[in-house]
C-alpha cells in the first residue's frame, strides 16, 4: 500500500500547478496555434477550412519581416545596453555599505512598482518635441531633435524598464563571491581594473547571461512601450499582433504572427542557453 501511495503522491502534489499551467498557458497556446491555420474572410470572418496561407503571407512579405527584424534588433540593443549599465551598477551596489546599499537597491527595484504604461507616458513627456530633453537641447543651442516615436525612444524606455532584471541576477552572483578573491588578485600584482576583468567578471558571467536572457525575452515581447513610444508607424512584434487582432480583425493572421515570434524567440534563447551552459558547466560547475 505504501508503495502505491509513494507512486501517486508526487502526481497529486504536482497536479494543482500542472492544472493551472495547462489552463492558463497550454490551452490558450494550443487554441492560438489552431486558429493560425484557419481561413479568414474579410466579409464573413473566421471559417472552418484550414490553410497555411497566413504563414506564407508573413514569410514572403517584407513588411512583416522588417518588423520581426526590428524587434530582434531593438531587443538585442536593449540587452547589450542593460548589461553595460547593469553590471557596473551591481558591482558598485555590492561594494556599498549599509544603509546606502538598501537605499540604492530600493531605488533600482522601486520602478517595478510603477505600471509600465505610466512610465512610458513619463518618457513620452520627457522625450516629446516640447519635453524636458528637447528644452535642454534648445537651451544648449542644438535645436529640436525628434526622439519620440523613434527607435531611440523605444530603446531608452526599454532599458529603463528592464534594468532591474539585469542588476538583480548580477548582484546575486556577486553576493556569492568571496571578497578576498579580488584582494588576492591585487596582492598578486593586478590593478583594480585587471582584477575586475580577469577575476570578478568571469565569475559573474552566469548572472550576466541569465539576466540577458530575461531582458531579451521581455524586450522582444514588450507591448506597452513600443505602442506608446513607437507611435502608429514604428511597430514591434507585440504591437503588430495587437493590430491584426483589434484593427484588421484578422485573428488567424495575428495568431500566425504570434506563433512565429514565439518560435523565433524560443530558438534564440535555447541556443543561447545551450552555448552558455556548455561553456560554464566545465569550470564553475
Amino acid at each position, binding site marked *: 500500500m505504501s508503495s502505491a501511495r509513494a507512486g501517486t503522491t508526487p502526481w497529486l502534489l504536482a497536479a494543482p500547478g500542472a492544472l493551472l499551467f495547462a489552463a492558463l498557458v497550454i490551452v490558450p497556446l494550443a487554441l492560438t496555434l489552431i486558429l493560425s491555420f484557419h481561413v479568414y474572410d474579410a466579409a464573413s470572418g473566421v471559417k472552418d477550412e484550414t490553410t497555411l496561407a497566413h504563414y506564407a503571407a508573413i514569410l514572403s512579405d517584407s513588411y512583416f519581416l522588417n518588423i520581426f527584424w526590428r524587434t530582434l534588433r531593438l531587443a538585442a540593443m536593449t540587452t547589450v545596453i542593460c548589461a553595460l549599465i547593469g553590471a557596473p551598477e551591481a558591482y558598485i551596489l555590492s561594494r556599498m555599505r549599509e544603509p546606502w546599499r538598501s537605499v540604492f537597491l530600493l531605488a533600482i527595484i522601486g520602478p517595478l512598482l510603477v505600471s509600465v504604461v505610466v512610465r512610458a507616458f513619463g518618457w513620452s513627456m520627457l522625450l516629446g518635441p516640447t519635453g524636458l530633453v528637447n528644452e535642454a537641447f534648445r537651451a544648449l543651442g542644438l535645436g529640436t531633435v525628434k526622439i519620440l516615436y523613434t527607435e531611440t525612444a523605444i530603446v531608452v524606455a526599454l532599458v529603463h524598464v528592464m534594468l532591474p532584471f539585469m542588476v538583480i541576477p548580477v548582484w546575486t552572483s556577486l553576493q556569492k563571491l*568571496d571578497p*578576498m*578573491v579580488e*584582494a*588576492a*588578485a*591585487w*596582492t*598578486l*600584482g*593586478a*590593478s583594480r581594473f*585587471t582584477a575586475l576583468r*580577469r*577575476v570578478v567578471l*568571469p*565569475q559573474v558571467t552566469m548572472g550576466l547571461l541569465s539576466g540577458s536572457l530575461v531582458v531579451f525575452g521581455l524586450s522582444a515581447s514588450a507591448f506597452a512601450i513600443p505602442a506608446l513610444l513607437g507611435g502608429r508607424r514604428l511597430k514591434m512584434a507585440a504591437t503588430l499582433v495587437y493590430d491584426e487582432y483589434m484593427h484588421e480583425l484578422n485573428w488567424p493572421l495575428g495568431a500566425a504572427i504570434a506563433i512565429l515570434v514565439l518560435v523565433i524567440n524560443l530558438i534564440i534563447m535555447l541556443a543561447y542557453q545551450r552555448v552558455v551552459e556548455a561553456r560554464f558547466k566545465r*569550470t*564553475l*560547475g
Partner: protein
Amino acid sequence: MGFLTLAGLTRLYGDVAAVSDVSLSVAKGEFISLLGPSGCGKTTTLQMIAGLVEPTSGRITLDGRDITHEKPDRRGLGIVFQSYALFPHMTVAQNVAFGLEMRKVARPEREARVKQALALVQLAALADRYPRQLSGGQRQRVAVARALVIDPPVLLLDEPLSNLDAKLREEMQFELRGIQQRVGTTTIMVTHDQSEALSMSDRVVVMEQGRIMQVDAPYRLYENPATPFISSFVGKMNRLSGVWRAAGVEIGGRVLPCEGAGLADGAAAVLAIRPEKIGLKAHGAGVLDGRVKGRFFLGSVWYFTVETSAGLVGVSLPNAGEEPAREGDQVGLDWSSSSARASKPDGAQSS
C-alpha cells in the same frame, strides 16, 4: 633595524582601536606568528602589512623602503588567505601563473616557475584541475604555491590551517614550516591556535585587545608567560590563590613550594604551575594531597583533575604503558619549587 618593521601601527574603527601602537621588527628569513583570541587585532595587523587595510597611524617599512601607503599590487607580498581565495574559474596552473602574468614574465619562464612551485607543494600532477575538484588540503597548497611563485620578500599567512580537519592540520603544520625553511622566505602567520604558533614559529607575538602583550621564542613564551592571560592562553595553567611565606604560597595551612622573588611575607599571592610539571605520588608523599575527580586518556598523555584543599588541580602525565590512578583514588601531588611560580593576584609579574 629589521627586514620588515612595524612602528606604532594603529588602526581605529570609529572610536574603537582594532590595533593600537603595534611595533615589531622582523628579521630576514624569520617565521613569526601573531597569536591571540579572535578580535585581538592580529588579522587587521596582517591586512595592514598586506595593504588591504589603511593604518590610521604608524609606519611599515620593508627592507628600508616605506610601504605604509603603497597599494597592495605594488608591495609584491605573498598572501595565503584564510578562505584560500583561489580563482574558481582558473585551473591550478593558471591560478599559480596569475602573479607571474601580472609581472609580465615571458611564457617559457612562467611555465617553468609554475611547474617548480607546484612541485614544491607536491601538486604537479593536479596542474589542470579546477579548485572545486580539490580537497581542502590541496587547495591550501595551491594557495601557498600561488603566493610563493612570485618570490615575495614576505609571505603572509592568515589562519592558513583553520579550515582543515585536525589530522591534516597537524601534517600541514610540519609541511608549511618545511617549505618555509627550504625557501627561506620571511613569514608572518596569524593564528588563534597556540599549538600551531608554538610548533611553527621562530618567535611568537601574543596579542590581546589590539596590543602586543609579549614577543618571545615559543619555548620561552611557554615557560615565562608575561601575564596570567598568556599563561592560560598558551598551554594550560593551574592557578592557586593563597598567602606568600618565605619559601612558597600558604594555602589551607600548608606551604606549597614555589619561586616568588619580590613578594612581601604575608602578601596575597597566586601560585601558577603547569599540569605536566606535577607528579603523582602516594597519598601523603607529595606536597599536596587530593582525590582524583576526573581522568581523561588522550593517547600520548593522561590528564587528571584532582580535588585538593587548594582547589581543583589539573595534572598531565605521559602515558608510560600503565594506568597511574583511577577516579576516586587518594593521591599526593608533588612538584619541585623551581617549576612553580608565585605572583601578585592582580597579575603583575613578581620578578
